[in-house]
């Protein structure tokens, strides 16, 4: 077998999924050719069929899905025609899989080294002692700390970034011909993502393994893939070598995939602060999570709070809303001091500060209609009822660009973007001055994200709203904020105007955070690692 043999050749593949009592097409006739040692990036929004296609490359379909036609030729054998038992001889042997959430994809009951080596031992590729020694070598190659010992730990005992690398070691252990990476870094912080990407690229190159890399992030795939295929609604939009795709995407749809990065906010007139939190210390039971936090938010502006998980961003929001009373420090709102505890605040004080959450799904009662969800704050804060309430709900729906047909729907009958819009309407119903947006777009696709961000900006202009926008996504920050607060380990690293924060010189942590955000440049990761190694 020479190096450039075709390893995987998918022809006119069609896959259907069963829902609402019907079979719906998910993948509608896609071709895919992969040679040995090549890495193919599959990108698209959720529902594009990229994960389904990636799994189909293994001959696997999710429960409730079926392959209706087409062939999946893997090294001369059509996986689509094999029985489950025959396909099993390929899985974990010649084709392996790296899942999105390593935390959920490792069995909590077994030690990491046993899970890493399970299929290698099962297929008799290596005897147990050899497989385990090899796993330690792989852990080392993937820059895991303490490679000799980490395998003895259970999944819950190591961090998400480390687990993702252990899973890569698990995928590499049988020395497969093909690895399917299914959004392997989506759940990670940017600084962790850089480490994981570097490690994954290193081993894939070292063993000349072919790979399919599924993601919705073009900048990430640019670092990994030799060429990229864009999918939409189960069809191929275009396929091109990575460099060509980035410098000159042909299709409008491909261009729209990085539209959020192109969003710009007009500069606003500086106003006096509406909210100032001063010297805030806060803790969960005995663990101190906020340390002398000072943030000032000018009226009518958007202040973005960025940082990794565990930096104290969301805790800051809980302190402002009164859900977590701080140990020391004060919260000044519109010229007066707010009581620290929620129950000590007046209804009027509560009304003026509202919150929108990351998971619109869980932030709404699934048994209530849109009318009840939006109507409740109208009744509670403003005392509206009957026809007046109904009229106001319709007005609010118009403000969030949904028509009044939605008034009788349940959350389950709404799309992700529509759900988040309803949550925005619910916050607006209280007629607040100040809204805390906690990662409101991180669960959404790029294009839906753009719609929500545009809506928030328009509402801000019309209603002179003030936003505290909590996010870990730097491109969102660039798009919508006036001021930026960088947080790390419960402390404010810096606060300033967007342009000042984003232009050098940076404090050390801001530098690390900003430099870790993937850029649309295939050489970005290589260059970054060179720079970091040099310093």
């Amino acid at each position: 077998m020479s190096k450039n043999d075709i390893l995987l050749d998918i022809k006119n593949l069609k896959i259907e999924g069963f829902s609402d009592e019907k079979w719906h097409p998910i993948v509608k006739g896609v071709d895919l050719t992969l040679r040995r040692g090549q890495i193919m990036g599959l990108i698209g929004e959720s529902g594009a069929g990229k994960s389904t296609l990636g799994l189909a490359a293994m001959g696997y379909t999710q429960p409730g899905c079926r392959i209706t036609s087409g062939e999946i030729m893997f090294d001369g054998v059509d996986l689509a025609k094999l029985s489950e038992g025959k396909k099993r001889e390929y899985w974990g042997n010649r084709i392996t899989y790296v899942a999105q959430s390593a935390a959920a994809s490792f069995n909590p009951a077994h030690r990491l080294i046993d899970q890493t080596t399970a299929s290698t031992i099962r297929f008799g590729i290596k005897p147990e002692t050899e497989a385990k020694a090899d796993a330690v070598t792989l852990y080392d190659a993937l820059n895991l700390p303490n490679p000799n010992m980490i395998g003895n730990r259970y999944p819950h005992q190591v961090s998400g970034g480390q687990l993702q690398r252990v899973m890569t070691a698990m995928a590499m252990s049988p020395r497969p011909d093909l690895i399917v990476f299914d959004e392997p870094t989506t759940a990670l912080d940017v600084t962790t993502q850089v480490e994981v990407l570097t490690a994954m690229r290193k081993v894939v190159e070292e063993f000349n393994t072919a790979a399919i890399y599924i993601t919705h992030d073009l900048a990430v795939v640019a670092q990994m893939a030799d060429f990229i295929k864009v999918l939409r609604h189960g069809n191929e939009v275009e396929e091109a070598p990575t460099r060509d795709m980035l410098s000159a995407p042909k299709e409008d749809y491909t261009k729209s995939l990085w539209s959020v990065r192109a969003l710009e906010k007009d500069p606003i007139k500086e106003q006096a602060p509406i909210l100032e939190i001063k010297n805030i210390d806060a803790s969960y039971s005995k663990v101190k999570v906020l340390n002398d936090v000072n943030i000032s938010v000018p009226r009518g502006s958007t202040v973005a709070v960025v940082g990794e998980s565990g930096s104290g961003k969301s805790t800051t929001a809980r302190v402002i809303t009164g859900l977590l009373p701080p140990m020391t420090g004060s919260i000044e709102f519109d010229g007066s001091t707010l009581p620290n505890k929620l129950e000590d605040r007046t209804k009027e004080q509560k009304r003026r500060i509202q919150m929108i959450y990351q998971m619109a799904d869980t932030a709404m009662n699934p048994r209530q209609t849109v009318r009840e969800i939006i109507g409740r704050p109208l009744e509670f804060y403003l005392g509206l009822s009957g026809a007046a309430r109904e009229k106001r709900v319709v007005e609010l729906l118009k403000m969030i660009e949904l028509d009044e047909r939605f008034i009788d729907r349940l959350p389950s009958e709404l799309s992700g973007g529509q759900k988040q819009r309803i949550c925005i309407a619910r916050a607006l119903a209280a007629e607040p001055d100040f809204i805390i947006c906690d990662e409101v777009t991180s669960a959404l696709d790029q294009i839906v994200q753009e719609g929500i961000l545009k809506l928030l900006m328009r509402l801000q202009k019309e209603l002179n709203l003030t936003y505290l926008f909590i996010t870990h996504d730097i491109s969102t920050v660039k798009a919508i904020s006036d001021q930026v607060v960088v947080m790390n380990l419960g402390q404010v690293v810096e606060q300033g105007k967007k342009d000042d924060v984003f232009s050098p010189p940076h404090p050390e942590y801001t530098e690390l955070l900003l430099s870790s955000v993937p850029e649309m440049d295939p050489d970005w990761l290589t260059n970054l690692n060179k720079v970091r190694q040099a310093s």
Partner: protein
Amino acid sequence: MHPIVATVIQRLFLGIATLFVVSIIIFSSIEMLPGDFGQAVLGQAATEETVAAFRKELGLDKPAYIRYFDWVAGVIQGDLGTSFSGRAASGVDRSRPVAELIAPRLWNTLFLAGMTAIIAVPLALFLGITAALYRNTYYDKIVSASTLTTISFPEFFVAYILILLLTALWPVFPSLANIDVSTPLGERIYRSALPALTLTLVIVAHMMRMTRAAIINLLANPYIQMARLSGATQREVILKHALPNAWAPIATVIAFNLAYLVVGVVVVEVVFVYPGVGQLMVDSVTSRDIPVVQACALIFAITYIFLNLLADIIGIITNPRLLHPK
């Protein structure tokens, strides 16, 4: 100290606290029963004075809270009190200590419960695991349907059907399970076979269904898909990947059913004339023999609390998050 030891000690204290609350509930519910032992023994014809004198002798004239503390103080020192029965208004006292009365009955009950558990628990686990393994096959459907059928019939009905089949039509086992202290072990097992079989049929369905559900519930987890994509067979997926994570809910259901075997089998005892605690308690309630009723209720409460504690401990030691903290 290992966090597990700490948790177990904490649960143990919680159990003791629960027991205290239960003792209050037991005592006050018995207080609420109409009539008392004095009236029950002396009958309608007795004069107010005789009843009052008899009550005084039994200590029933003291205020309720004093009687409660007397009782609790006694129990803590291992004294369950003296039975009322055997006493008569005439002053003749043939009463026996409660402990002496309950001990052989309790031993019988535990023997029957243990015998049933030895048959039912492995059977339920085997059926539950195989039903999950061959989910939606005819095997699964037949197992589910037949266990559900046996649980749907009242216990006495199952008991009589078994008597009809295994005593009348094919005489294999005796229909009367009258055993006493002197019965040798082999004979004991032989005579207890029918009650044990009846109880097995009654409790297997619940445990089997929960085992199956607990395993199937886990099959939607990403790590199960991951196991499949690593080439694991269905058997491996169930036994190695799902079952180790399913022990906590399974243990809870088993504990619940074992507790039922101790506290809830009076109907079966009556049908087979099996001398267990259940019958003793019912008899004592009828005759208002309060010390015995209280002692039985307390033993039942201890059984529940102990078995649930055991299930909790199994839940903890099979959960690596708790067994191997960060």
